[in-house]
């Protein structure tokens, strides 16, 4: 089959690999119809996630048709149309049973490596380094889906591929970012990053009853999406001071909750600040550029929530712990426990409360995946989300 493989920093290729086969009794093989490139794939593309190997198949946002199931999979049958959550979760460990699917205790066969870096291992993730399991990803013609009796959600015919594929990661991740804010009526929520996750976080904050949503980014076309599709207020951090503007918009209180939907490859309006962290990151003295996180902490209302759904992999410097501690802030975070959200969010799509396809900017065949990565990386042609059809 054809599959998109990581070939080194800033290099992906569509290569020929063997077709996947059932390896565990709870596996299913899915013939992929639509798959997407995630912002976090760019972290892999840029070489910021450790333990990648040349030839690793990328992709953790995909959907398609079940073509084969293992003997222990009784809820699916060949022909079913499914979307597959990006965290691989067994459904039976204590974490899964408490709904914390992205920290499944069994799905990372390379847990030993992850423990050395993170203390304990999170779940395995499709196509997301050997640190997180060494699983082949879904930017391919077929994928093997472990624990198919737990993860995949059947998609009804009235929901299109470009809507359903958002349930694999981007929409639930943004939704969880908003849910962690514990929004109550009248609240103002600020979101750093107007990529797909940030836009879904902003849209979900609205769905969950936020009074006002403020989105911060530097790409005017993305801020426009936030204004037009979500009714958010926006700040372009290259044109305005973010902290001043947020204080002004909230009459000095600060946002009630701040969502970091940027993660480890942030940018900063101040060239010197950007250079400081960029140099340290290049020298591997720190692994992240946590501008959004620092700013979110400083901006947040005292006693408010800082919700982190942007991806981090290692260590950050200059964490404003003083502000965090003295102002009674709360941080909530995690890779999204997608399995918990797929069904309720599918229902919201079916009820017409949201059409998640509004973020899709590019559609191309799988064979053009390298071009898709390049366009997304360079933010060319107003790129927000690239879908690959198979």
């Amino acid at each position, binding site marked *: 089959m054809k599959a998109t493989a990581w070939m080194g920093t800033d290099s992906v290729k569509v290569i020929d690999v*063997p077709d996947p086969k059932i390896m565990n009794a709870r596996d299913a093989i899915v013939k992929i119809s639509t798959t997407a490139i995630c912002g976090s794939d760019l972290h892999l593309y840029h070489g910021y996630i450790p333990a990648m190997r040349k030839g690793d198949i990328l992709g953790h946002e995909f959907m398609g048709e079940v073509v084969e199931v293992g003997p222990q999979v009784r809820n699916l049958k060949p022909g079913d149309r499914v979307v597959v959550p990006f965290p691989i979760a*067994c459904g039976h460990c204590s974490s899964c049973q408490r709904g914390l699917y992205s920290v499944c205790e*069994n799905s990372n066969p390379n847990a030993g490596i992850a423990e050395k870096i993170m203390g304990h291992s999170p779940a395995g993730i499709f196509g997301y380094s050997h640190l997180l399991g060494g*699983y082949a990803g879904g930017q391919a013609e077929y994928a093997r889906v472990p624990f198919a009796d737990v993860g995949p959600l059947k998609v009804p015919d009235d929901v299109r591929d470009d809507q359903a594929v958002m349930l694999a990661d981007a929409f639930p991740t943004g939704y969880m970012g908003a849910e962690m804010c514990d929004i109550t009526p009248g609240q103002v929520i600020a979101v750093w990053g107007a990529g797909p996750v940030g836009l879904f976080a902003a849209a979900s904050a609205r769905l969950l009853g936020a009074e006002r949503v403020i989105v911060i980014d530097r790409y005017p076309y993305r801020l426009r999406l936030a204004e037009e599709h979500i009714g958010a207020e926006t700040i372009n951090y290259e044109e305005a001071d973010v902290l001043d503007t947020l204080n002004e918009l909230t009459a000095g209180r600060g946002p009630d909750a701040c969502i970091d939907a940027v993660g480890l490859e942030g940018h900063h309006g101040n060239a010197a600040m950007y250079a400081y962290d960029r140099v340290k990151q290049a020298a591997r003295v720190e692994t992240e550029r946590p501008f959004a996180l620092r700013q979110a902490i400083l901006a947040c209302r005292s006693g408010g929530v800082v919700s982190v759904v942007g991806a981090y992999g290692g260590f950050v410097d200059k964490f404003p712990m003083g502000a965090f501690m003295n102002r009674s802030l709360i941080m909530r975070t995690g890779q999204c426990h997608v399995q918990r959200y797929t069904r309720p969010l599918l229902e919201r799509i079916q009820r017409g409360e949201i059409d998640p396809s509004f973020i899709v900017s590019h559609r191309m065949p799988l064979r053009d995946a390298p071009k898709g990565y390049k366009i997304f990386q360079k933010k060319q042609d107003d790129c927000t989300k690239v879908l690959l059809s198979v």
Partner: protein
Amino acid sequence: MTRIDTVLLPELDGPVPATLPSTLGLLSLALGVGALVAPGPLARLAGVDDSAAARTVLPAIGVRELGSAAGLLGGRRPAGWAWSRVAGDAMDLTLLGRALADRGGERRRRVALTTLAIAGIAAVDVLSAVRISRARRARARMIRMEVAVTVNRSPAEAYRFWRDMENLPRFMTHLESVRADDLRRSHWIARGPAGHRVEWDAEIIDDQPNTSITWRSLAGTGVPNAGRVRFVPAPGDRGTEVRVELRYVPPAGALGRAVAKLFGEEPEQQVRDDLRRFKQVLETGEVVRSEGSPNGISVRQQAMQRPAQPLPPSRR
């Protein structure tokens, strides 16, 4: 519950009774006291009562023997003290040899008898010292591991799975097979690199249903080993804390090197991986596999990942 080390030690000590050092110690004590309290009669008995030097040397020998006695009976470094007895025997034999050369008649006969007796004691001392040293080296080689994992299953379920010893190779990857011969005895075959196989028989020596299982290898195996697994209810209704203690003594020499390879450079990490697989099998039904780690969790595999691509048909 006995300490797991003592489960294994009788076999390590092999044919040496645990009482050997103290028996030698009592012998030293008797000789030492005799030489100090009654040097005259002792000198007569040994046929050296005609020598002024012997009357001064005998109390010194007595002091030396008391030193050995204290060391052997004190129980610390018994091997060293056993060898000190051998050294004392050598000294005594040298002195007796000289005494034999310049004596005749009844005294010469007594000196010869004493020499014979001391030579006999020396032989026993050498044998004992060798055995005690060997046991000490075996104890020093003993590898001790204590590893635990929390499994989201009841103690009874975890116990039941482990108690069927034939299940062990499902999560202990270095085992090729375990065959239960009866309820207590089993035959284990471990798989090493380059076709090396290590086999042994084991028996369950303590079985507390739903609580703990203790086993050890039978006498005569090349790799004496023992283990205990305890199943403790995890606090907060979170299943079972499975706590494993393992002891094994890799033999010296080529077999030892093969066993060392079997367990790799981080034997404890291997056991930790075994327990992770145990958790996977109990919670999910089988060992979880990925394209990068097609054989599931293993330290060795984590270091040598294949690309995250489906396996070629030849490797399935």
